[in-house]
């Protein structure tokens, strides 16, 4: 029997997780059994200590607030949000109040029915677990760890392969049609190849692979004295030389073969010019970044470096689409960035009239220093040179300022924009001798103020890109010594780390920017990424761990040092990975820094993903507040 209203409910639910994981039939069964509840503003759906209902809820229109005691808002649920999942555990009482913040329509769904339906649906099950986990007070329980976002399937098309043309072996191993199988095998063995093309007048007519030798010769079906024509696969599949990687992959899959012949015009009627094997494709994909790094080392112009950096940018897109782990992506992109910068520095030194007068190191700061920069952003750098006598100081400094000028100009040409705050080595404030840096940092640590703390958060994440490692080590040592003597500095740093509390949830204009050009957009950097980064920094510094800049590695180290907080640190690292991936994707799709996100453009799933990251931020900030006794300072 037709049920128009159930169909309407179906149409709504199908857009939201976990319902979109269900089959049509499953979802329709649920839709037919929904109860529609109308809530006036301020009315309660359930209260704390009330026995749980046998239903859970999803907001259709309006908004429902979940409150802990004394009207503390814990979460706001709007269209498509589910709540009251406690019903799924079927015992106990509610621990929160659910109250309509505005006039709302809520669908109530029988928990028993959902259970029956989703028992076989792993995806939906995982999602509910994850949601439940983020709604409970202890989202770090071991059962749910790692499953939080495991259900998010992102199968994108592999875009970067489509643009890339496949490189093939230009000297294919060939033999004539009269060759004996034994001779062909000897040629293959000598040439160390797994296939041989049988040609006639330079045109490919057949192919023999290792597999043919296994299945047709070793089995005794054909004698080794026989002619290659007896066992070759014929005709061969041919393509022109501009075949792209994805075309090649598809062709191999379609024909269930592992080798493609490349001919002049792409037909069997023209001359053979190469062979493309499955192995070539694998090598090609695996080798991209390292090939690129090799290329940088050979680059002699800034333009070439720019091309390389842009190529890396395209890989980045491909990696994200392939859902490669974000930590791996940051390693690859940072390595390319490093080598591009190193080459730019080398080229600049070559342009100078003489060699550097003393040892120096070129440092990158901030996100570059932490190896977390994926998109093109501003360059933040500094230069550190060895101490010289007062007489030689100004000459030396001028040399390095001139060098820095050349380097920063090149970096800009490559695509790293100038830092608007001029935090660059060509600024005489940030091109200093070792002694000056030590004094500067010591001053920041011993006489901190808000500006100095902010500078510390940028400068203390430095990483040497080029030059003398010993200099930077000395500087690091001096920083830790100063901190050791003025531990109060860490408290200030801690205070800075908790100044941006995480947003509670997404709710209309609840936590977006209220003014400026980014009005009504969500600042993912300031509100989500930096709090995690800042927390990691102050904690790692408090353990006096040197040379550990990367946020993910910092949390790994912290988990090692404080096993009792392992779960929290791991969830911070995970949240960071999700946020970084998110920002990068946003940046790539909008061609900007990805910092400001229009919430309306996000899918429900994305919003939930983001929401899940806020909980660890809140908890790490609580930990910092307690550990550094910040409530006393506040």
């Amino acid at each position: 029997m037709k049920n128009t209203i159930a169909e309407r409910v179906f149409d709504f639910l199908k857009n939201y997780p976990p319902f979109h994981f269900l089959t049509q039939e499953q979802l329709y069964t649920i839709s037919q059994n929904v109860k529609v509840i109308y809530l006036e503003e301020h009315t309660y759906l359930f209260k704390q200590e009330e026995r749980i209902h046998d239903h859970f809820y999803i907001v259709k229109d309006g908004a429902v607030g979940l409150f802990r005691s004394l009207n503390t808002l814990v979460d706001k649920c709007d269209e498509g949000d589910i709540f009251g999942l406690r019903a799924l555990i079927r015992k106990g009482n509610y621990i929160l109040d659910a109250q309509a913040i505005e006039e709302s329509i809520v669908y109530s769904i029988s928990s028993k029915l959902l259970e029956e339906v989703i028992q076989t649906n792993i995806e939906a099950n995982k999602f509910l677990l994850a949601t439940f986990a983020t709604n409970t007070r202890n989202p770090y329980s071991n059962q749910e760890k790692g499953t939080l976002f495991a259900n998010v399937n992102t199968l994108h098309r592999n875009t970067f392969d489509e643009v890339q043309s496949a490189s093939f072996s230009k000297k294919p191993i060939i033999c004539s049609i009269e060759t004996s199988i034994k001779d062909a095998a000897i040629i293959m063995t000598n040439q160390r190849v797994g296939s041989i093309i049988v040609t006639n007048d330079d045109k490919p007519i057949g192919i023999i692979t290792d597999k043919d030798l296994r299945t047709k010769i070793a089995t005794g079906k054909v004698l080794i004295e026989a002619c290659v024509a007896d066992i070759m696969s014929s005709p061969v599949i041919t393509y022109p030389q501009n075949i792209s990687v994805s075309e090649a992959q598809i062709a191999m899959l379609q024909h269930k073969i592992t080798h493609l012949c490349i001919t002049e015009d792409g037909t069997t009627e023209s001359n053979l010019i190469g062979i493309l094997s499955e192995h070539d494709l694998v090598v090609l994909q695996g080798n991209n970044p390292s090939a690129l790094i090799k290329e940088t080392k050979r680059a002699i112009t800034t333009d070439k470096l720019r091309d390389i950096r842009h190529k890396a940018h395209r890989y980045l897109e491909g990696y994200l689409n392939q859902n490669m782990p974000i930590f791996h992506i940051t390693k690859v992109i940072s390595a390319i960035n490093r080598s591009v910068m190193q080459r730019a520095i080398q080229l600049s030194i070559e342009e100078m009239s003489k060699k550097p007068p003393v040892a120096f190191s070129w440092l990158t700061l901030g996100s570059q220093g932490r190896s977390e920069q994926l998109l093109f952003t501003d360059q933040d750098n500094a230069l550190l040179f060895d101490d010289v006598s007062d007489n030689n100081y100004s000459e030396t400094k001028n040399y390095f300022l001139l060098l820095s000028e050349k380097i920063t100009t090149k970096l800009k040409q490559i695509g790293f924009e100038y830092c608007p705050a001029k935090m660059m080595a060509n600024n005489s404030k940030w091109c200093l001798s070792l002694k000056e840096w030590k004094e500067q940092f010591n001053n920041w640590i011993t006489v901190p103020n808000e500006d100095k703390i902010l500078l510390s958060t940028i400068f203390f994440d430095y990483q040497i890109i080029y030059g003398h490692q010993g200099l930077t080590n000395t500087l690091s040592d001096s920083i830790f010594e100063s901190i050791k003597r003025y531990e109060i500095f860490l408290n200030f740093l801690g205070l800075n780390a908790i100044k941006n509390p995480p947003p509670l949830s997404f709710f209309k204009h609840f936590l977006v920017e209220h003014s400026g050009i980014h009005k009504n957009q969500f600042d993912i950097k300031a509100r989500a990424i930096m709090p995690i980064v800042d927390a990691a920094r102050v904690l790692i510094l408090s353990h006096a761990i040197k040379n550990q800049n990367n946020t993910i590695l910092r949390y790994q180290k912290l988990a090692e040092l404080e096993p009792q907080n392992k779960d929290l640190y791991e969830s911070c690292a995970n949240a960071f990975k999700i946020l970084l991936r998110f920002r990068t994707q946003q940046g790539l799709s909008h061609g900007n820094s990805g910092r400001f996100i229009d919430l309306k453009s996000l899918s429900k799933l994305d919003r939930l993903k983001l929401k899940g990251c806020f909980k660890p931020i809140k908890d790490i900030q609580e930990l910092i507040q307690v550990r550094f006794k910040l409530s006393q300072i506040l």
Partner: protein
Amino acid sequence: MLNWLKHKDYPDFWNEYHKNFNSKTAHTLTTTRFVIFDTETTGLNTQTDRILSIGAIGLTGNVIDITDSFEMYITQDTFNPETVKIHGILKQGHITKVSEKEAIQLFLEYIKDSILVAHHTRFDLTMINNALARLQLPKLKNKTLDTEILFKKTKLCNQHNQRYSLDKLCNIFNIAMHDRHTASGDAYITSLIFLKIIALLKKERKITLKDLFFGQNRRGLL
């Protein structure tokens, strides 16, 4: 008067329906079951036009229960091609249809003694009563409410002489007009409007079930 004599001639389903009204349980606004319904018809003439479909949904307190819904399509003898473009129900559609008698019988079983609510109730009620008459049966015994009249009781209504169509109320209450001009779709929309009106009235003053019927004797759409 001599009703009890006639009773014997009525079919069982009518007698069963009739029995529902014997119980004298007092209901309140939150415990009584409302049935919000709508009919799609071949036209607006209650004498010559026929019911194409009946859609209805049960509502108790502030909960609309989708399991408690009713959706029936009726086979036609007369057919007015003009109205097809409004309701989209063809004479020979792919939807399962039942005879008028069957539909009316199922409808009576479904509504029991609930309070019937519709938008411009008078029209839908007359259509059903005329169908009952064709079966030689008396009129519906249920109490009825009209969302247009109820709306005029609220302070939101400032022009009492104006007509308020379902579309107009959807705009006022910000309700998405899905499945408009299907009996079930309109019944569902009407039920949301009904809930919102009751909430408004409750906010304005303390109301009881009885208050809703006050001033009901105004004519509907006809």
